[in-house]
């Protein structure tokens, strides 16, 4: 009887987190002000962290908060402050309708691809999630999967290089 109660609770928590993620996502793309959009993004990031908690991975959940909320969002905020993007600015007007369609497609394609991949190759999982020790997690990342793990950090380098190139091109136009 007690297990049933816990299972119901787990479902409620799961859908609560999914609701937070979805609401945050819509707030990010639909809001007119960049500041509010960022708050929506942060809400989504928190929701994802909550899902990690639900899967008994508190280390990854806290890393999500530490890195994405504590560092990446703060840097995005810095960028927003430098752009002087007030709600009544140039970019706040309505966009043409086809842009919404493109944006919807751009969101849907990776969602469908990931969903099919996950459903087709569902990994065998536990009924009740088990907490992995941090040392095991570390071994996993730095011994078995060191190449993909290091490749992820390339992403940051690429985005940084991209930002620098964009800035240089803008300066050249002036």
């Amino acid at each position, binding site marked *: 009887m007690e297990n049933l109660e816990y299972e119901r609770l787990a479902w409620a928590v799961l859908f609560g987190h999914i609701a937070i993620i979805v609401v945050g996502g819509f707030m990010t793309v639909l809001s007119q002000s960049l500041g509010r959009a960022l708050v929506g993004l942060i809400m989504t990031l928190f929701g994802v962290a909550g899902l990690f908690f639900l899967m008994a991975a508190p280390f990854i959940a*806290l890393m999500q908060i530490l890195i994405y*909320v504590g560092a990446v969002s703060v840097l995005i905020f810095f960028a927003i*402050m430098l752009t002087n993007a007030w709600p009544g600015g140039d970019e706040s007007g309505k966009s043409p309708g086809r842009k919404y369609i493109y944006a919807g497609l751009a969101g849907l394609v990776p969602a469908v691809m990931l969903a099919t991949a996950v459903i087709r190759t569902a990994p065998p999982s536990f009924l009740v999630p088990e907490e992995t020790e941090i040392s095991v997690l570390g071994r996993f990342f730095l011994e078995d999967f060191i190449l993909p793990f290091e490749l992820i950090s390339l992403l940051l380098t690429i985005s940084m290089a991209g930002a620098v190139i964009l800035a240089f091109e803008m300066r050249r136009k002036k």
Partner: protein
Amino acid sequence: MIEAIPTPFIVIFVGLLAVMAFVGLNAVVLVYLERKIAGFIHRRPGPYEVGPPCFPHGILQPVADGLKLVGKQIFTPKGADSFLYWLAPMISIAPAIVCFIVIPFGPHLQVINTNVGLILILAFTGINVLALCLAGWASQNKYGLIGAARDISQGVAYEIPLLLVVLSIVFMTGTFNLFDIADGQGAWPWQWYIVYQPLAFILFFICALAETNRNPFDLPEAESELTAGFHTEYSGMAFACFFLAEYAYMVVAACIMAILFLGGFQGPGAPGIWWFLAKIYVLLLIMIWIRWTFPRVRFDQLLNICWKWLIPLAVLNLLITLAVIAL
């Protein structure tokens, strides 16, 4: 009805209530101490001696402060983003309360004993930077915006040596569990980690001052140049939230220092909450003492201290720790 609620929820609920009371009481005590010590160091009696003779030493002053803050009118400035403007104080205070639930106050006094306690605190204290930026940005005020920009550069810069220093302690102990770290140290001062890591303690103290926006690093709210920085437009309880959060983060920083370097609840005689409280209050008194003794640094000095001194020293400390462990 009560049996239907699982015990962990009751524990967390009661724990959160206790922690909120602790945060509030600490703020009252710290505001009083701050005024008292400021009056003493600067030789300016005022709030330091105010009140009728039956309440000596101005002990009613914190109550008067609290009543004033509760009674003040709060309003949204014209042109501000009202949603973000009111969200910011809440984002500032909420994570501070979460931090306390993993802190071991005594051998048996801890709400949740988790293996990731240290990371939880580091993750949730990082959110404060975001709250201060939101406050500065949403209030549509030049001073607020400058304060927010300063807060980001300061917070991001000082988080690096802070994390490196924490990492060297974690390498020594091999755990993120705050209880285990405190438990691994002995009762006597020469068995505490401050003896093995004196440089780390000093670096951590400086970074903690900067992260909690305390003097001499209180540039985001520098009164003499920015009116009040990020909270220029806030009044009443909204301002009190930021204020409460600042004191709460000070206490969190003192708790972490006490656990990582000073043996936490360990002490000669019997271990217990009294040792822990004594240690954090000594650290807090040093923080207040520093505030009323040193002048504020300039902003370029602030960043130079961090990037040219603290980060290289923190890396050096980490390398030495690793070398010693490897040997």
